[in-house]
């Protein structure tokens, strides 16, 4: 009789057809699970979970001019999202490119396609006009390590100008190394180790001045989207956090419990393997607790308790039969909720075709609201706790994640593994493996290699933001006006000061805040960062 191929989870864990008490015979409730809100936090970071507070509906949004981004944020807030994310313009802010640079000029039609060019404090004021940031949780455009200090400086300066104490601000930065350096590395970025320095400065600054603010959030999401599997996603996320921890400890000013809370919010990306995605959340919490407690001696629950944001869908969205993506978004969001996440953004169903239309964006909010309010899943914490299958899978995911974390350590740690191209090659290898399985039909994707339809029954209205040339022209005019109207002496002094600080070891944030208040533009700051740090090209397997 032919031996059938073993069935595995999407990340390669072999699966039996049924699990029994024998599979969890060694499970120790106190050591391995604990109640929600208790070490090792496997069952959730908080005791009552969603009964006390539902997860935050937190959607990525942004395009066009700052005022367009503002209107979409207001729309989503109106329809029920409970925090807002300002997506920064890819062409300029992601890499802090100068709008006058050859690279951007030659592609002026693309300005504002995926986020607004918030290139000065005035543009931030435009984007946030009428939005009560003192009452809202926000991600202020700080998507990449390269732009995060500048974006934070603008948001903090704006808050101060509105009379809001930084101590009262709530929100998070990202500083996503995977986005910048792994998934979509642009040309002429500042080197990863300088990105690390800037973001460690941000962490130290926030600990002192904005203790309610979470300065970074490592989203393993983009590592997964580049090809790494769900288990490796945990490992690279924690490897990034370890790089932050070790640099800040090396600096000698803070103890682990002073700053680790600022690293304890991460991002993951469900990828349609329902139970594995649940196990990933639970395993990650247990692993983080052990890592902080045992390797770094953390004692404060705020240090050892991991909080998770998810981006549901992305590379698993299909161009074909786009309404199917609503179902995929629901499956992923359900897994995330059963896994006990703290906030979520569901990618809009038209993602593979265009940036979200209003309708698709609202659908993402509704998906979450229906699960929160109609399904009953929010009534009980960690409802799958004790399931023979889920507990066994959680153990296996955790073991795999520790093993891969060791492999990254063997390659010199996160920054070394990134700069050498090793992570890119790993991601590529996994991406090829996935691709082969889709081509062979081993992995079925409805609408793509199963149930294909020659004619789409539903035409997605293709949403288009304001034309790039218009965004380019208006943005340039506004920047020129800023330069004309600002105090030239303070601008020159602030720029010199920033150059001095970047080239030295002082914390960059006060100088960055002074610079944005003096109306130095993101273009000028980006040029300065490149001048001081030099540039880096990712070693890609192409």
């Amino acid at each position, binding site marked *: 009789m032919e031996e059938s191929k073993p069935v595995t989870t999407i990340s390669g864990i072999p699966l039996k057809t049924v699990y029994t008490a024998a599979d969890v015979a060694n499970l120790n409730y106190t050591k391995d699970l604990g109640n929600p809100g208790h070490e090792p936090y496997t069952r959730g970071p908080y005791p009552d979970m969603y009964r006390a507070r539902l997860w935050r509906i937190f959607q990525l949004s942004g395009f066009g001019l700052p005022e367009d981004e503002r209107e979409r944020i207001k729309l989503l807030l109106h329809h029920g999202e409970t925090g807002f994310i300002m997506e920064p313009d*890819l*062409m300029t802010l992601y*890499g802090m*490119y100068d709008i006058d640079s*050859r*690279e*951007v000029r*030659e*592609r002026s*039609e*693309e300005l504002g*396609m995926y986020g607004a060019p918030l290139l000065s404090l005035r543009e931030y004021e435009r984007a946030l006009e009428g939005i009560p940031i003192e009452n809202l949780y926000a991600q202020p455009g700080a998507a990449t390590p390269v732009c995060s200090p500048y974006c934070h400086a603008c948001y903090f300066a704006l808050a101060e100008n509105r009379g809001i104490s930084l101590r009262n601000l709530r929100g998070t930065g990202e500083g996503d190394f995977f986005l910048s350096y792994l*998934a*979509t*590395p*642009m*040309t002429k970025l500042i080197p990863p180790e300088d990105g690390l320095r800037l973001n460690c400065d941000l962490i130290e600054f926030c600990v002192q001045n904005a203790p309610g603010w979470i300065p970074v959030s490592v989203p393993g999401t983009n590592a997964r989207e*580049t*090809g790494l599997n769900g288990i490796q996603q945990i490992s690279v996320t924690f490897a990034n956090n370890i790089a932050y921890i070790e640099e800040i400890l090396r600096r000698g000013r803070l103890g682990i419990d002073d700053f680790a809370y600022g690293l304890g919010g991460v991002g993951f990306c469900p990828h349609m393997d329902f139970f594995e995605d649940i196990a990933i959340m639970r395993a990650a919490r247990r692993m983080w607790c052990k890592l902080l407690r045992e390797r770094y001696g953390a004692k404060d629950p705020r240090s050892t308790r991991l909080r998770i944001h998810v981006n549901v869908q992305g590379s698993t969205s*299909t*161009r*074909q039969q786009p309404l199917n993506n609503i179902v995929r978004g629901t499956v992923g969001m359900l897994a995330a909720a059963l896994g006990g996440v703290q906030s979520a953004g569901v990618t809009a169903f038209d993602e*593979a*075709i*265009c940036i979200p239309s209003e309708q698709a964006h609202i659908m993402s909010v509704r998906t979450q609201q229906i699960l929160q309010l109609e399904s009953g899943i929010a009534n009980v914490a960690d409802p799958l706790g004790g399931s023979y299958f889920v507990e066994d899978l959680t153990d296996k995911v955790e073991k795999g994640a520790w093993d891969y974390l060791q492999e990254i350590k063997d390659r010199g740690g996160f920054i070394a593994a990134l700069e050498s191209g090793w992570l890119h090659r790993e*991601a*590529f290898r996994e*991406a*090829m493996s996935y*691709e082969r399985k889709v*081509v062979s039909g081993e992995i079925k994707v409805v609408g*793509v290699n199963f149930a294909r339809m020659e004619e789409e029954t539903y035409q997605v209205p*293709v949403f288009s933001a304001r034309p*790039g040339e218009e965004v380019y022209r208006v943005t340039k005019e506004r920047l020129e006006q800023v330069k004309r109207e600002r105090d030239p002496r303070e601008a020159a002094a602030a720029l010199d000061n920033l150059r001095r600080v970047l080239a030295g070891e002082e914390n960059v944030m006060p100088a960055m805040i002074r610079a944005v208040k003096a109306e130095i533009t993101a273009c000028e700051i980006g040029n300065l960062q490149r001048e001081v740090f030099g540039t880096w*090209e*990712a070693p*890609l*397997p*192409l």
Partner: protein
Amino acid sequence: MERKIRVLTVRPSLDGHWRGLAVVSAALRDAGMEVIYGGTALNADEITNAALQEDVDVIGLSMYGRFGIAYKVAKLLPEMLGNRPLLLVGGTVPPTEVASLKAAGVDEVFSAGSSLDSIVKYIFDKCADRAKNE
């Protein structure tokens, strides 16, 4: 010995997505083609110069965003001396853009989700046709 088909691949967009191009490049290499990666953020002049220098049969542009550079390359190609390479575009290409690109002289568009086999077959078939017509 038969000359290998030479393919110049380029990422003209500032958006640095590379997974799609890496997967396609591997498929082309597996099929016996020679794939030369021309680089990132190149403009139309740089792309056509590279294509000339490398004496390629195919130019493959992996693009995420808008396609101005693809249109410019399509315009420049007929002015090239020697044989005009095939011009292919891949990446996230909205359906509305496909017809427009082809009308401008792009030979074929393989948007995200296209089968790797179809790309390989297309290149082999077109290159064989050209060889016959020479």
